[in-house]
């Protein structure tokens, strides 16, 4: 008997086997996808996508598209984890590139989460004595949401920035 398999034969057989496995796995995956869809229906979360328009009677400017060099200094930078594993303690850092001078400085940071029944999480007033516009805290999140930071300046202008966070275990 000839034990040696020819090259052509080998390729044919492997092609058939691999095709069969792909089709088979597709059928199984289809079932699991349906199952996942059921779970997703069961606990569907609604994420509020609205922007905060007003704070303290002042209009908030949201820069859409590419910001100019001047606007880049004014828009607050937010540091948050992409996926928060523990919703009871999500580290949040906010920062502004503008230098703190007595002429123009950052007055207040506002933290908003519109999915929370109490939307205002907190506000942080700072002065030029701080030297740098930077605050770091920890917040609670129940579900995935947009965390919005508003930066109010001493001349009355307010700029906003926001970031999306996913939460695996809620912590409220």
């Amino acid at each position, binding site marked *: 008997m000839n034990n040696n398999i020819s090259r052509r034969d080998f390729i044919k057989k492997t092609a058939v086997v691999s095709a069969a496995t792909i089709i088979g796995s597709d059928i199984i995956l289809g079932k699991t996808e349906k199952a996942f869809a059921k779970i997703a229906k069961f606990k569907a979360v609604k994420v509020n996508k609205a922007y905060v328009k007003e704070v303290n009677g002042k209009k908030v400017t949201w820069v859409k598209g590419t910001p100019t060099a001047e606007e880049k200094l004014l828009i607050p930078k937010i540091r948050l984890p992409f996926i928060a594993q523990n919703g009871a303690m999500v580290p949040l850092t906010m920062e502004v590139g503008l230098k703190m001078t007595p002429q123009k400085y950052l007055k207040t940071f506002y933290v908003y989460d519109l999915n929370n029944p109490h939307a205002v999480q907190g506000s942080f007033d*700072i002065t030029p004595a701080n030297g740098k516009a930077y605050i770091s805290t920890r917040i609670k999140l129940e579900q995935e949401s947009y965390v919005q930071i508003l930066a109010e300046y001493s001349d009355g202008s307010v700029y906003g920035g926001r970031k999306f966070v996913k939460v695996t275990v809620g912590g409220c």
Partner: protein
Amino acid sequence: MKLGTILVRVPGRVKKGKIIKVLSLIKHPMDTGLVKNPKTGKIIPMWIINKVDVYYDKKLITVCHYGTGIASNPFLAFYLKADKKAPLEFVMYDTHHNVYKKTVTIDVV
């Protein structure tokens, strides 16, 4: 750690005019008033720190207003311009009318 104790970390010796980072932590439950006690089924009443004042050289430099969204054992970090050797005082108020205080001195060389 006892409830209401404040921990503050500042660098030991600072050159004049340098901007330093200040870290602080306070032990506090920060109950939101929305959570039920699993054993008794009653709602745990709201008890949060709602205001934090920071004084440097007896001048108010930072004020924080907390809502219910701040995590338990609130952590706060900010920067400070170290101009002179002076005390840095933290005063925290909560909704049960308790006041927690802590002072550290910033050693400017």
